[in-house]
């Protein structure tokens, strides 16, 4: 079923009876909230996501290239694998999140304070090194070359910062 308004996958289905006339209404969460319909609350997220994904993919399909999360992994734990999953899983996750969050579709409120870029780079470097090792051992040379470039540009960015000792270390 598709949303009557925008055509996205519908999550709320209502039967409206008006003057003895029965009409079915199908809406995505966003438009259901707008229409003042009650949102099915607290559905298990794994079930919701599985419902979204299954239409297109098999359970073993890798959903996130960064961490290798598959649909069956997610169904088992109901946990994502890494921060990139939020982009990798795309629309399926979007619908699942809105389903468990009462129709909310974006964050509102605080954003992070200025985190130390030094620590950020250190962590990023560590994760790139690991990815690089994995790419090399899997003989994915093209990917490895890309990762090496990113590591190199990261090292250049780091130079002046290290010289001024921005992080007090």
């Amino acid at each position, binding site marked *: 079923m598709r949303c009557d308004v925008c055509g996205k996958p519908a999550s709320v289905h209502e039967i409206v009876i008006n003057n003895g006339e029965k009409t079915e209404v199908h809406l995505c969460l966003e438009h259901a909230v707008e229409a003042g319909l009650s949102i099915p609350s607290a559905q298990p997220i794994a079930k919701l996501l599985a419902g979204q994904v299954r239409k297109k993919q098999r359970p073993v399909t890798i959903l996130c290239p960064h961490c290798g999360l598959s649909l069956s992994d997610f169904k088992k734990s109901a946990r*994502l694998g890494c*921060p990139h999953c939020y982009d990798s899983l795309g629309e399926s996750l979007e619908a699942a999140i809105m389903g468990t969050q009462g129709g909310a579709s*974006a*964050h*509102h409120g605080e954003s992070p304070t200025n*985190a130390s870029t030094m620590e950020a780079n250190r*962590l990023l470097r560590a994760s790139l090194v690991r990815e690089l090792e994995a790419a090399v051992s899997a003989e994915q040379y093209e990917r490895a070359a890309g990762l090496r470039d990113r590591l190199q540009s990261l090292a250049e960015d780091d130079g002046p910062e290290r010289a001024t000792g921005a992080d007090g270390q």
Partner: protein
Amino acid sequence: MRLVTPSIWTAGEGPDSDVVMSTRVRLARNLQEVTFIGRASLIQATETAQAVQRAVARSESLKGMNWLDLTAITARDRALLVERGLVGEHFSTANHPRGMAIADHGEVSILANEEDHVRVQAVRSGSRVAQALEAARDVEQALGQHLPFAFHSRWGFLTACPTNVGTGLRVSVMVSLPAMALTGQVPRLQRAAKELHLAIRGFRGEGTGHEADLFQVSNQITLGRSASELADDFSRAIVPELVEWERAARRAYLQANRWPAIDRAAREVAMLQSCRLMARDEAMKRLGRVRLGVSLGLIQGASYVQLSSLMLRIQPEHLAIERPAASHGVEQDRLERARLLRESFASVSVSGCDAS
């Protein structure tokens, strides 16, 4: 490690403490570019725990916290942390590298490698949602100076479970609802909670019964509204509503059942004054009933402060610290627990018993 100082949240005082025992606020955070704990390798998990520990040590306002390596402390110390409500059973017994920083007798703590890389939690006695949020936020901001938190322009702070995404905030109040339980209003409460997107759990979290008529009420929605707005829902609407509901149930119950209520209270006190063996679960149940008697004004000589601290002191590890016995075992435990309760209730009395 010795956590012998009673933790603040069992102090049993604070606003609306006849109903609200404690308030807890948790903020979940993860590190940019780092695999979540569920899929992290041993090396990655070690690096994350070290990064959190380093951030605590570097922060001017956090460096006074005590760092505990959960893989290095004894199983009994871990059990003590569980009894305190500082960590869950799962975090306590997991196998991966993990640790925590604790300040002020557990009023504020930071968990590294729980379900998320970082979980900041603040606990206060009574109904103090705003203060708990402020305390948790101070720690989160101090950590944020040294740790890059994963943040998404649309989804906000990213969490391992999408049900926590956005603010990563969980507000949870531990409420004592003996009169609502006694008068069969728990299903009504559960229906109302569902409608308001609130979760209701037992004393020890998910899947536990409502031991001693204690319930944890917490938000399920973490996205789309700011942390302050979500917290305000609790302090302005949810908590006052719950408190009023339970108080009304207490008044109505006492009015309709004066003698049964007095009889019940008197029997409970007599039982606690004369027991010789007492299992943990039974003790919790009886302390919950005594709490009802106190809230109805029927029991003299027992305060909420005393009852809250007893609920902690009768737990196995706390009992063992307070009363080191020559031998430890279930029987010894039950003997010591009964002795502690008899002593605590020696001068407690029930009013109205001699009226006719």
